[in-house]
């Protein structure tokens, strides 16, 4: 009953055990990896813990208000940005412990050689709304 964001990073996270970039995996390894993620999401939907999941393109654009009567300023993509978000999954679980357990499972998705990649995932709780005030 608390929502958590499982955040996947392109860069910026601590190095995983096997850091072979995905573009150097075999077709089968990529398929196995994606299947693992999809099965994981499907299982969470069945257990009533799934909320949302999306993947994001690596390249983004910074946008800023350009001033009165002027178009927005854009710049980038910033190739050196150290922390690009690859995608996310939102779960709704009973406890922080359960969220950690699931993040651990997701981190075990198979990579090159079919072995778990031990990917680092960032786990962040959502802000809830105001519960009953205890005075």
């Amino acid at each position, binding site marked *: *009953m608390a*929502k958590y964001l499982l955040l996947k990073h392109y860069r910026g996270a601590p190095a995983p055990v096997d850091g072979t970039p995905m573009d150097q995996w075999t077709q089968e390894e990529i398929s196995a990896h994606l299947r693992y993620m999809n099965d994981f999401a499907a299982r*969470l*939907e*069945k*257990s*009533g*813990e*799934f*909320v*949302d999941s999306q993947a994001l393109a690596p390249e983004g654009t910074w946008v800023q208000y350009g001033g009165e009567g002027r178009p927005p300023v854009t710049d980038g993509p910033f190739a050196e940005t150290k922390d690009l978000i690859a995608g996310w999954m939102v779960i*709704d*679980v*009973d406890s922080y412990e359960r969220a950690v357990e699931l993040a651990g499972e997701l981190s075990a998705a198979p990579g090159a050689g079919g072995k778990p990649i031990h990917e680092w995932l960032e786990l962040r*709780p959502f*802000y*809830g*709304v*105001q*519960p*009953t*005030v*205890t*005075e």
Partner: protein
Amino acid sequence: MDEALLRSLTPGVLGILVRRGADFAAAEDAVQDALVEAVRVWPADPPRDPKGWLVTVAWRRFLDATRADASRRRREDLVDEEPPPGPAPSADDTLQLYFLCAHPSLTPSSAVALTLRAVGGLTTRQIAEAYLVPEATMAQRISRAKRTVSGVRFDRPGDVATVLRVLYLVFNEGYSGDVDLAAEAVRLTRQLAAAIDHPEVSGLLALILLHHARRAGRTAPDGSLVPLAEQDRGLWDMRAIAEGVVILQSALARDRLGAFQVQAAIAALHADALTAEETDWVQIVEWYDELVRIADSPVVRLNRAVAVGEADGPRAGLAALASLDPALPRHAAVAAHLHERDGDPRTAARLYAEAARTASNLAERDHLTRQAARLNALLRG
């Protein structure tokens, strides 16, 4: 079609089917079928006894379904067991549903979802909207819960404390889609209180009535949090407060004290005061001492420290706080408040900012950030 009537009849009908021996999941399906049939038939041909009509149709649906996949012998047994038609007592069956839906084998979120569905009669979509999850997710959560309790028989009275915890969870969910969950919790707890004679049920009902009564004063029109001391007490629902106090008094008179009654007593003392200054903090501290005796927890002790700070001054509050783990939720916020009252705005500002970083919800975070900003502006002169 009177949707409220259908919703109020649903748990009783479901309870009767389950008591007659229907498997919970199958009974639920049959009741849903009967409701669909009612929506179709009633406008043109309203029944004299809506509940009896629903029981009859649902039971037939259940038998049809059973016939399809169960042995003939089982079916004949069930038909033999069918009691003669006539008015059925509803309270006991609904009560059993409360216990089944709050069964300890369910996770809290499953118990809450099942209770809203089976006892509250809400649709899966309504529950999913209230909890901001996809409907498919909520449907699976509910069907898993149904499977979990399917083997559970109705031969033991359940644990009242578990039912009350689930109802309190429903009340504390602030989300609202189509359904106001706090109001739903009040309705369900009222129903439970009417069916069962138990001082803690009255305690919970009093507590949530008293909290609910003050809801309008708790947030400003822009959604920001208004602390208790600054709330416009004219916005409080005085009728609900009066009702909560009467329910609490009759529960306390039975001399079987429990944690919900004590919390309700504290809430009543807040609600009773015409202004924040008139709050009887000394008596509130006494109730917190009682709560520490019967349901000790770090959170209770933290709240007690707040009350001590009001009753005996900020130094006494800080002393009460000293023995508690600083990592406790709201610990920094309480410490900030006490330091400010003790005339140390610098420490208070730092603690408010720290509390804002660890707040668990937006309204609280924003409120604490404003407190820190207010003191920082003061310090800058």
